């Protein structure tokens, strides 16, 4: 059997990617529309971008969102990396089943449940809702994604390098920082980016856990979308999509280059040993 693409394969790829990308492409195109009507093309214009830049509630929400996303993704990356390490390197310990349950369940848990339960808990411990509570909520679900990403990287890499370091008398903590962390760095960076975009994106959990003065961008966009589709929102969405796409593409290219280099180095080390 030949290893190649049939017409059916090419067709499903083309249609699949059209389905995935066409809606976003149309959204971007119509953000440059002169007309207020979203479906009538009246010529190229960037006026909605300047309208967006003068919308102070939108800009304020964007600033809050960036702060929440940055803080929560940093914490989530640290906690998630530790959790991923525990899942793949610590073997059996009492309470492991509960631990892995708490790592995997948030990945599929309906957001309305997570949001409601966190809110009720913040009320129960009388923590004022706002920046802090949204950030805690985002750390909690993001760290599970980081844990899974880091863990899958740890499963696939050669453990004997770590064992060699420990056999030579390197203490576990130092082995982690000098051997393990540099090798899993691409996964850790990917985990950070994933947490950042998850936080940037979250509407439901943030709606439950936020308070006055901490309106995030998705909440702001949602409340405007309910009033109707406007080119101004299209413009804001385009900026957001562009930023995320640029960040993800750069990160993936950088980590891929590093991975290729590292694999080459590992091969060289194996050949000279």
């Amino acid at each position, binding site marked *: *059997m030949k290893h190649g693409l049939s017409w*059916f*394969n090419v067709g*499903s*790829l083309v249609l*699949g990617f059209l*389905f*995935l990308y066409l*809606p*976003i492409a*149309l*959204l971007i195109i*119509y953000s440059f529309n002169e007309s207020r009507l979203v*479906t009538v093309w009246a010529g190229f214009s960037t006026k909605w971008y300047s309208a967006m830049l003068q919308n102070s509630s939108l800009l304020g929400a964007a600033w809050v969102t960036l702060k929440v996303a940055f803080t929560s993704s940093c914490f989530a990356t640290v906690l*998630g990396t*530790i*959790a991923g*390490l*525990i899942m793949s390197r610590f073997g059996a310990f009492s309470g492991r089943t509960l*631990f*892995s*349950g*708490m790592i*995997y369940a948030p990945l*599929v*848990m*309906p*957001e*309305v*449940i997570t949001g*409601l*339960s*966190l809110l*009720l*808990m913040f*009320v129960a411990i009388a923590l004022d809702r706002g920046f802090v509570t949204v950030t*805690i909520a985002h750390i*909690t679900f993001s*760290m599970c994604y980081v844990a899974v990403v880091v863990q*899958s990287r740890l499963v696939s890499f050669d453990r004997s390098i770590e064992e060699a370091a420990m056999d030579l008398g390197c203490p*576990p903590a130092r082995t982690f920082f*000098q051997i393990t962390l*540099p090798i899993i*760095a691409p996964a850790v960076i990917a985990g950070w980016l994933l947490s950042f*975009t998850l936080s940037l*994106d979250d*509407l439901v959990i943030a*709606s439950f856990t936020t308070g006055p003065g901490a309106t995030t961008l*998705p909440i702001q*966009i*949602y409340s405007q*979308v309910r009033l109707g*589709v406007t080119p101004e929102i299209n413009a804001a*969405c385009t900026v*957001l999509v562009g930023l*995320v796409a640029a960040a*993800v*593409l750069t990160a993936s290219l950088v980590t*891929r280059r*590093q991975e290729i280099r590292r694999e080459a180095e590992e091969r060289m080390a194996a050949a000279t040993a």
Partner: protein
Amino acid sequence: MPPPTADRDPAAKVAFVSGAAANAGGVSGLHARLLLFPAYKALVDLLHRLGITGRRVVIAIPYLWLLAFFLAPFLIVLKISFAEIVIAMPPYTPLITFMEDGWIAFHASIDNYLFLLEDRLYIDSYLSSLKIAAIATLLALLIGYPIAYAMMRAPKRWRFALLMMVILPFWTSFLIRVYAWIGILKKEGLLNLALLNLGVIDQPLTILNTDTAVYIGIVYSYLPFMVLPLYANLEKMDLSLLEAAADLGCRPIKAFWVVTVPLSLPGIIAGCFLVFIPAVGEFVIPDLLGGSETLMIGKTLWSEFFNNRDWPLSSAVAVLLLLVLVIPIVLFQRMQERNAQL
């Protein structure tokens, strides 16, 4: 990670590595030197005798976080689901009251659950959520499988780019992707415009604010979750099995059903779980794309909480939703755990 200049300049690389070594050595070196002091050594010994080892501390950090912010909140939801609504802040009755004479009054009510079972709205919401999620999952599988299969058949040097193209939409905002469909599906939207111009239809179709729009939204938003596990599974498949089937006279289509599909079953199951479970509790898609008659439990919970402000009843809705989902969630977790230890 070494700074970028370290690649080109070997001396810089050596300096960087030895700098890192001195740093890391600093911490454990300090620990070793401090052990010479009796007080520090006694403290370390005491911690060890109490069972507080480095390993346990490392486990405790994420463990305690998840206990506090994932498990404990559920227990609180469970507790409040047995309370009654009152006009106060917080708007529910306490389960336990400490009386002045030292007695403890325990007050729990199952009225919320009885109400959920009595009122058709809630049962219909649960059933309709399960139906919509199941149909959308099936559609996502039917659309996702050919994509994942074609990615597997593609030349190796294309695969990374194709993989990135599947992942990229997943990184862009969920809300924005759902929002984009409003402009396409509405009556004077781009889809109707295109179909009218092509002469396929004479009257604009009503798609927005129907269940069809919800199916489209779920399939579109969750498609990467279906394609990725399928592709990860298909990629590992030994293509010589298909060659063997062909040599033995099996036609390609039959070989696909007899060899490829059974082998990719773990990927199919993982993908279906990843789409089905979150789709059952979905709120944004039915709210923005669905109509007033689209019943989904996530939407019901949302309006119970934000519009009716009935915290105890929305807690009961959440508890029942979790009970509905607990079997698929446990099955999913078992499967992940098995993969993790491979």
